[in-house]
């Protein structure tokens, strides 16, 4: 056995890529878990094909999982991989362009057959024709190494080949000095009932690890020290899971039953999956016939006094629009989770985008204001869901939670909150008459508002004496009777708007991060661009650029000081994964000449790209104002 050198690195980005059937998501998940256990900070980005069963070996069928881990705070899954694990030619073809020269490539040469090469139009194997000369290439016969290691197992060759992802995981675990005990545990619970498969996977994992140790091919192993993180207990969490848990926590703390009206849609479906398991928390999940029924069921449940939620993506929001308008005018609490994806229409179902902001804001008939909240990272989806519930139940209004595909499937270490410290938000239902009529009798007026919040009472069926009717037709102020009176409609329209605007009183001021204190350039974002923007800001500051950074969580209403913040800077850059939707809102509301920087590639921004935007903006700014 050769003696290996140990090298310290501060951060690594690995991308596992293979055919959809190669188990790359599982491999990535396990490597993530091992890495988290070592105390590195990390961020992940899975990338699935849109088709469930794309033909094997084709570019369309490539599935990948990128993981960025470091000894410092990690804000993004990494712009570009340092290491690419390519399980077949298609995976190499699809991902090589993202790998900078000098990067490391581990290829499974067993799959580089004539047939497979031809499928992705390689005339000659790129491993052999010198086209990978600028990279560190490790050509390994991963499949045969796995099959050999499992020679004694009573399994078919096909079954043995299936364990090649575990071999690769073992090898990478060795290479980056990750412990494999967690994965062993995981395999035991996953394959407990299939001992043959379990043993084979464990053996393949070990074989991969040992292979690294013995082969001449790898001379160095790497260590990445633990990152400095806030003290606490951590777990890894995806955005969709965090949304689901946030809803459960909010319902639990408010003492309300959680009812989810849902229709499966990518990339939101996991929220339904997670919540459908949580009956222990009294969660009702209703998978109904369509998106409209999903929001309808939620509205019915809300009328009955439940915390009602409907999760969807952009096309689903389009279908739900009329019903959301109904909830606006009936003034019932409702949380709509829009896990945004590329649009319009079916668009790019598995890719990310921020292009539903204006749909959330204005995509209904009539003056139909709603509150809009956007989480900034997978773990933050938990807090943002709780905040959405607070607004919905306090103000009796639909609230949009604008997640996106990048947050939904991406994951990061999450410092698990102490339940006792989560915000309590008691809900008070109407229990008695609230007004006196002309005869001096006590009566119930469903649209008599709370003077502070302008919210109307949440008066649920089952309370004697409060029987009343609500609906989509305009209601008379206070009494809630049907009203076609012009002045009343004008008043009610303004009241509904004022109620939403008034939420700002309970929203914290926007915090600006400006360590130098003298920046004249502000970069402002919302939603999932938080990571790339923060990382880009860090890079720009390293280059001596004075740049301030802020991130808007409440898109409607805006934080009270937003206008002031915008006016305090000579130049404001707003990067968005759309064609400038927040920028449009800011310009309209504050008459500030914010500059949009936009991309709609279905992928998150890279921090390098945004850093260069900042550099350029700074040059121009210096030319003009200094």
């Amino acid at each position: 056995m050769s003696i290996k050198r140990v090298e310290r690195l501060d951060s690594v980005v690995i991308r596992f890529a293979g055919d959809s059937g190669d188990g790359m998501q599982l491999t990535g998940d396990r490597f993530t878990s091992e890495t988290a256990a070592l105390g590195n900070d990390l961020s992940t980005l899975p990338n699935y094909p849109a088709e469930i069963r794309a033909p094997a070996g084709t570019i369309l069928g490539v599935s990948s999982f990128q993981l960025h881990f470091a000894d410092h705070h990690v804000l993004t899954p990494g712009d570009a991989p340092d290491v690419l694990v390519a399980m077949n030619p298609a995976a190499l073809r699809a991902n090589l362009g993202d790998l900078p020269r000098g990067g490391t490539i581990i290829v499974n040469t067993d799959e580089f057959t004539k047939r497979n090469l031809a499928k992705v139009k390689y005339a000659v194997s790129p491993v052999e024709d010198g086209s990978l000369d600028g990279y560190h290439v490790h050509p390994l016969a991963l499949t045969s190494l796995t099959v050999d290691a499992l020679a004694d197992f009573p399994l078919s060759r096909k079954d043995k080949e299936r364990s090649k992802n575990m071999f690769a995981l073992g090898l990478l675990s060795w290479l980056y000095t990750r412990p494999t005990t967690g994965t062993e545990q995981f395999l035991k619970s996953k394959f407990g009932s299939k001992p043959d498969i379990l043993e084979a996977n464990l053996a393949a994992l070990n074989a991969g690890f040992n292979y690294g140790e013995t082969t001449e091919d790898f001379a160095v192993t790497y260590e990445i020290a633990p990152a400095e993180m806030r003290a606490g207990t951590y777990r890894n969490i995806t955005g969709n899971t965090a949304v689901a848990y946030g809803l459960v926590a909010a319902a639990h703390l408010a003492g309300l039953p959680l009812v989810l009206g849902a229709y499966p849609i990518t990339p939101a479906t996991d929220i339904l999956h997670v919540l459908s398991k949580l009956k222990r928390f009294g969660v009702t999940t209703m998978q109904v016939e369509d998106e409209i029924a999903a929001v309808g069921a939620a509205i019915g449940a809300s009328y009955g006094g439940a915390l009602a939620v409907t999760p969807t993506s952009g096309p689903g929001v389009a279908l739900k629009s009329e019903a959301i308008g109904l909830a606006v005018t009936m003034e019932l609490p409702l949380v709509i989770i829009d896990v945004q994806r590329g649009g319009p229409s079916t668009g790019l179902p598995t890719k990310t985008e921020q292009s539903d902001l204006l749909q959330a804001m204005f995509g209904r008939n009539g003056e139909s204001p709603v509150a809009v909240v956007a989480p900034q990272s997978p773990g933050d989806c938990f807090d943002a869901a709780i905040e959405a519930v607070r607004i919905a139940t306090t103000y009796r209004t639909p609230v949009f939670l604008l997640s996106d595909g990048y947050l939904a499937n991406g994951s990061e270490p999450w410092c698990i909150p102490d339940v006792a410290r989560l915000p309590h938000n008691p809900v008070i239902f109407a229990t008695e008459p609230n007004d006196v009529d002309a005869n001096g009798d006590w009566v119930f007026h469903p649209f008599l508002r709370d003077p502070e919040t302008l919210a109307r009472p949440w008066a649920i069926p089952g309370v004697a004496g409060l029987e009343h009717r609500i609906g989509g037709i305009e209601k008379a102020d206070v009494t809630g009777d049907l009203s076609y009176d012009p002045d009343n409609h004008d008043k009610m329209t303004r009241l509904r708007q004022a109620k939403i605007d008034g939420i700002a009183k309970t929203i914290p001021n926007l915090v600006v991060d400006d360590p130098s204190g003298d920046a004249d350039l502000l970069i402002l974002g919302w939603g999932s661009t938080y990571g790339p923007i923060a990382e880009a800001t860090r890079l720009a500051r390293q280059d001596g650029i004075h740049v301030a950074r802020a991130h808007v969580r409440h898109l409607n209403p805006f934080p009270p000081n937003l206008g002031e913040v915008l006016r305090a800077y000579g130049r404001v850059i707003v990067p968005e994964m759309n064609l400038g939707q927040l920028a449009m809102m800011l310009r309209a509301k504050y008459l500030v000449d914010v500059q949009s920087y936009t991309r709609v590639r279905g992928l998150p921004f890279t921090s390098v790209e945004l850093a260069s935007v900042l550099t350029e903006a700074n040059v121009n700014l210096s030319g003009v104002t200094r």
Partner: protein
Amino acid sequence: MTIVNLGMPGAGTLGVPHLLDEDPKQSKKDFSSDMEPRWCAGCGDYSILAAVQGFLPELGLKRENIVFVSGIGCSSRFPFYMNTYGMHSIHGRAPAIATGLATAREDLSVWVVTGDGDALSIGGNHLIHAIRRNVNLKILLFNNRIYGLTKGQYSPTSELGKVTKSSPFGSVDRPFNPASLALGAEATFVARTMDTDRKHLTTVLRAAAEHRGTALVEIYQNCPIFNDGAFELIKDREQAEARIVHLIDGEPVRVGADKVVARDDSGNLAVVAAKGADLSRVVIHDAGADDPSLAFQLSRLEDPTMAHMPMGIFRNVSRPSYDDQVRAQIGEVVTKAGGPATDLDLSGLLHGKDTWNVG
């Protein structure tokens, strides 16, 4: 008058609080809101409203635990006139909204009021799926075979060739037979009745209220403004007698005084003279039959000329309701876990299986 037996399994109002003996008796007036109905003079909706308001006291339910949910259309104004909880929602969506409400609240008696356009056109999907799931809802479908609120266009139950404002050359749309549609979706309760036949309407409503699960009650309703006399052939005493196919559970299916429904050689149903009919072929109505085929066949006796029009309860079978089962699944898990989730349970959920400590 029958009061629903509280302990009776399958009772539609099981779980809904009933009046106590000392509570004042309800009357029709208790169910009338202070809003004046605004339907056109002579509209069949008035008779239905009166029948419903008159019938509800006999259920003995607490008024505050009754909810009427409607969509859009003339009939959908109904909840405003009922002194119960109510929601006048959006076009076609009432069954979906009511499904959410009925599932979230076991203690409510939930009624849907809808029309032929609302239920069968824009809301067709929600209707068949509520029926398929067998949600504990009573759906009153006012069928006037026309769009009234939008002033007279042909509806999904208008007859072929109907001349309306939007079909000046006659409609080429084949109409739905709502009873057949509901039976095709395996409805557990399907009935047809008439706005003006107070006695029949009340009997059907009573049976619907007692049914646990979705009860679809199609009510023929005259729209004197845009489709006057649509049901005259079966309303007019003389004419009706020969046309109405009486569906009475356990009895031979009679048509008028002298005809019955019998099976022909190929198993199809036909209306034949009672006199001389082969008794072994005369259809005995069995609303409780597990197989919906007979009920479906009976529903097909209807024809465009209204030569024969089945009225009454086509089907009334017991099957677990969706909302009961949804609640049972949750209840079972919660009970097994020893009661409602605590903060500790929540903390356990947030932690999951794979955690690590820092600091």
